[in-house]
């Protein structure tokens, strides 16, 4: 089986086999990133455009490194330096990029569906690097790879996703990825942060973290958007940390060899305690390393499309 898609827009529409294919493709690139000369010529002569409408140094850097290690030429567009501020529509921006003969467009945008709209109207291969609250597929795939490496397989694992699920694209992509791979997913957060009808995605909703964490194999902590304080989603950071922060004590309630994950950047002492971030259970940095490999594998697969 080969990867037939033009774009990667989200995991909701991907099959288990397609996700496995991307993970398999990522595997050999981990070795490349471990070399002294971290470069292979697979995408030589290809152009990758990082079009980031939202600031994200971390994701953009990961995509940039991935593309560069594949020998692609990489150009970063960001709103302040592009014509977006001059009233150009997203589609016009994309058409311009297309006619510069770029091959892959990596898009980060605050609007849900931006990547899908763009992909539909362009010949470019579009990779969704986060669209509003919708999806962040490469993050979830890196998480999947990390879990698979550490646990051998994802099937039948108990995974808790904790935090502001309603406003999290990472949560949505992870829910799709994990449920499709056969994990049992629990979602934990205050009711203000759990969207309506979430159970329809095949997850179990909890509001009590202590109850939800008991016996889980993996805990994925979501970043608390501190700027949301004052919008009545939670009364105070203090109370949030007390009810939904991952402390060493809570880690004890999970399975013995639990993995603690976080998409970063971490608010130490808020959603996750300082000693847990640096503790043995945390695989947060492995997630980052796997992020580059997954993005390399994905770009390799997309560039092989005929």
């Amino acid at each position, binding site marked *: 089986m*080969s*990867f037939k898609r033009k774009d990667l827009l989200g995991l909701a529409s991907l099959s288990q086999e397609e996700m496995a294919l991307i993970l*398999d*493709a990522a*595997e*050999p690139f981990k*070795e*490349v990133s471990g*070399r*002294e*000369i971290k*470069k*292979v*010529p*697979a995408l030589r002569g290809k152009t990758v455009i990082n079009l980031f409408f939202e600031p994200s140094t971390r994701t953009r850097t990961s995509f940039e490194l991935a593309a560069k290690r*594949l020998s692609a030429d990489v150009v970063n567009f960001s709103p302040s330096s592009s014509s977006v501020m001059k009233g150009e529509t997203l589609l016009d921006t994309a058409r311009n990029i297309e006619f510069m003969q770029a091959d892959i467009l990596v898009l980060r945008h605050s609007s849900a569906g931006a990547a899908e709209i763009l992909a539909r109207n362009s010949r470019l291969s579009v990779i969704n690097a986060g669209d509003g609250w919708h999806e962040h597929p490469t993050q979830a795939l890196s998480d999947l790879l990390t879990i698979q490496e550490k646990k051998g397989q994802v099937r039948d694992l108990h995974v808790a996703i904790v935090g502001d699920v309603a406003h999290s694209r990472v949560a949505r992509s992870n829910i799709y990825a994990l449920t499709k791979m056969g994990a049992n997913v629990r979602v934990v957060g205050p009711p203000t942060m759990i969207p309506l009808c979430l159970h329809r995605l095949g997850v179990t909703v909890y509001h009590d973290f202590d109850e939800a964490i008991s016996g889980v194999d993996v805990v994925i902590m979501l970043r608390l958007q501190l700027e949301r304080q004052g919008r009545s989603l939670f009364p105070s950071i203090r109370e949030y940390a007390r009810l939904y922060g991952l402390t060493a004590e809570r880690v004890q309630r999970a399975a013995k060899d639990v993995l603690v994950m976080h998409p970063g950047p971490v608010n130490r002492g808020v959603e996750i305690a300082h000693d847990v971030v640096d503790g043995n259970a945390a695989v947060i940095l492995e997630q980052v390393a796997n992020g580059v490999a997954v993005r390399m*594998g994905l770009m*390799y*697969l997309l*560039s*092989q499309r*005929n």
Partner: protein
Amino acid sequence: MTQTKSRHESVIMDRHEMTRALTRIAHEILERNKGCHDVGLVGIRTGGVYLAQRLKQLVSQIERTDVVLGELDITLYRDDLALRKNQPVLKKTDIPFHISDLKIILVDDVLFTGRTIRAAMDGLMDLGRPAEIQLAVLVDRGHRQLPIRANYVGKNIPTAKDENIRVFLEELGEEDRVSKLIEAERTA
């Protein structure tokens, strides 16, 4: 309209000839490099890997020393990557030693156009700076498109360009042999 494929196989080297050729190559390697203390064997996926493993064993039998062994996947270095219809399966390159300053002996089953070896050399260079790169192949069938020549050759087999030479290996579930395959397509 139906197409029927009939395959005719003629064996060029049998199991014994293969072993003899590999044993000779092992001797030649040791002779040329005055032993094997600064030598590393690197098999090119897939066939070359098993031949390199056999050479490693033969060398250690002859010399009673061990020689380091690695595996190289050249998919990412191919010059026809974008042209191929099917996505080649990516495998891992696994060279568990530093290649810098070693004499690296690339091992492959069939030497044909030379493009695979070009890609393998590029791949190796990205991993370090070997003192020397040598090339060992079981079969050289000619028709080079690049200025590449093997240092160790099991057997030279003159071929027509469209002929198909296949090396079958025990490790891949076949009986050891080198064959010329003639595929005739009949349209009925």
